[in-house]
C-alpha cells in the first residue's frame, strides 16, 4: 500500500511500479517498514525449510516398498463410542485458523491505537496457540507410549513414517511455541503502552510502534499456513 505524503507524487502501480521501486534510491519496498520486509524475507527462507521437509517426506513415501501406515486410523480418537478418524487433527486445524482470525483483528486494532482490544486479542491468540501445542504434546505422548512409534520404526508399516512425523510436526510445533512466547511479549508491550510512548525494545533497542503487531501477525499467519500444508500432505494424503 502506498502512503502519499504531502509534497510527494503518487507512486506508479503494477509492473511499472516494480521497475520504479527497484530502480529508485535507498529502498525498494515503498510504504513497508523495514521490520515487516525482513519478516517477509525470513518467512520466504522458512518456506524453503518446510518445503525441503515436505519434499523429503514425499520422496521417502514414494520410494518405500512397504505400505505407508493408515494415517487416518492412527490419528483416530474415540470419545466413548466409535473412533472418529483424524478428529484431534481437525480440532487442531480449527483452533489454529481461529488464532489466525484473532491475530488479524489484533493487527487492525493496533493501528487504531486500541490498546486494550489489541492486547486481549493477542492473548487469546496465544491461548489458542498454547492449546494447539498442548494437543500436539498429547498426540506425541499417545503415539510414543501407547502405539510404540519411533523415528526408526513403528508397528503400522513403513519405518519412515515415524521420522517424518516427528521431524515435520516437531519443527512446526517449535514454531508455534516460539510464536506463543513472542505473542505474550508483544501483548505485554501493547498493554504497557510501549508503542505509544516509544519505549526502546530489548531486541533492537529501537523504539517500536504498532507495525510490530503486524510483523508478529505475519509470523503467526505463516505458522497457520504451514499447518495447512502439513494437514493436506501428511494427514490427508
Amino acid at each position, binding site marked *: *500500500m*502506498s*502512503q*502519499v505524503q504531502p509534497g510527494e507524487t*503518487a507512486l506508479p*502501480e*503494477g*509492473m511499472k*511500479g*516494480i521497475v520504479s*521501486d*527497484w530502480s529508485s534510491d535507498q529502498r*525498494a*519496498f*515503498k*510504504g*513497508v517498514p523495514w521490520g515487516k*520486509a525482513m519478516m*517477509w*524475507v525470513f*518467512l*520466504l527462507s522458512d*518456506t*524453503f525449510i518446510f*518445503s525441503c521437509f515436505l*519434499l523429503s517426506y*514425499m*520422496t521417502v513415501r*514414494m*520410494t518405500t*516398498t512397504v505400505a505407508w501406515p493408515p494415517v487416518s486410523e492412527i490419528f483416530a480418537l474415540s470419545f466413548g463410542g466409535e473412533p472418529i*478418524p*483424524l478428529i484431534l487433527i*481437525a480440532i487442531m*486445524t480449527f483452533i489454529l*485458523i*481461529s488464532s*489466525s*482470525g484473532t491475530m*488479524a*483483528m489484533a*493487527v*487492525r486494532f493496533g*493501528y*487504531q491505537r486500541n490498546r486494550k482490544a489489541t492486547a486481549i486479542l493477542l492473548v487469546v491468540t496465544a491461548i489458542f496457540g498454547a492449546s494447539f501445542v498442548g494437543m500436539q504434546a498429547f498426540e506425541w505422548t499417545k503415539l510414543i507410549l501407547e502405539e510404540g512409534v519411533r523415528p526408526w520404526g513403528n508397528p503400522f508399516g513403513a519405518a519412515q513414517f515415524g521420522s517424518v512425523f516427528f521431524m515435520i510436526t516437531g519443527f512446526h510445533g517449535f514454531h508455534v511455541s516460539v510464536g506463543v512466547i513472542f505473542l505474550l511479549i508483544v501483548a505485554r508491550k501493547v498493554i504497557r503502552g510501549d508503542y505509544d510512548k516509544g519505549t526502546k525494545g530489548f531486541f533492537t533497542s529501537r523504539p517500536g510502534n*504498532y*507495525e510490530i503487531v*503486524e510483523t508478529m*501477525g*505475519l509470523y503467526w*499467519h505463516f505458522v*497457520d*499456513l504451514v499447518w*495447512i*500444508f502439513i*494437514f*493436506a500432505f501428511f*494427514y*490427508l*494424503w
Partner: protein
Amino acid sequence: MANAEAHVEGQQHPIGIYFKIWALLFVLSAFSYAVDYYHLEGGLRWSLILIFMILKAGLIVAVFMHMMWERMALMCAILLPMTFIVVFIFLMTSEADYTFALRDFFFAVGGA
C-alpha cells in the same frame, strides 16, 4: 484503492472482511476433513485436497497477511521465488520414481 486509503496508518481494513475470511477458512477446512471422513479415494481425493489447500493458503496470504494490498514489488519479491518449489517437486518425483523402480527390481529378483 491505494489512494483512497492513502492517509490511514498501516494496514487498516474493515473488520467484516476478517470475519468473512475466517468463516470461509472454517468451511474449507470442514470440506478437506470431509474428504477423509467420507473415504474419497484416488484422483478425486488428491485433487480435492490440493484445491482446498491452495484456496486456504491463498486466502491467508492475500487477506490475513495483507498481500493483496501490498505493492507489486513486494508481492513478486516474496511470491515469485516460492513458485520455484514446483521445479524441486518435479526433480524429486522423477528421482523417487527411479529409486522405487530400482528397489522394486532388486528386491523382487535379487538383482539377478
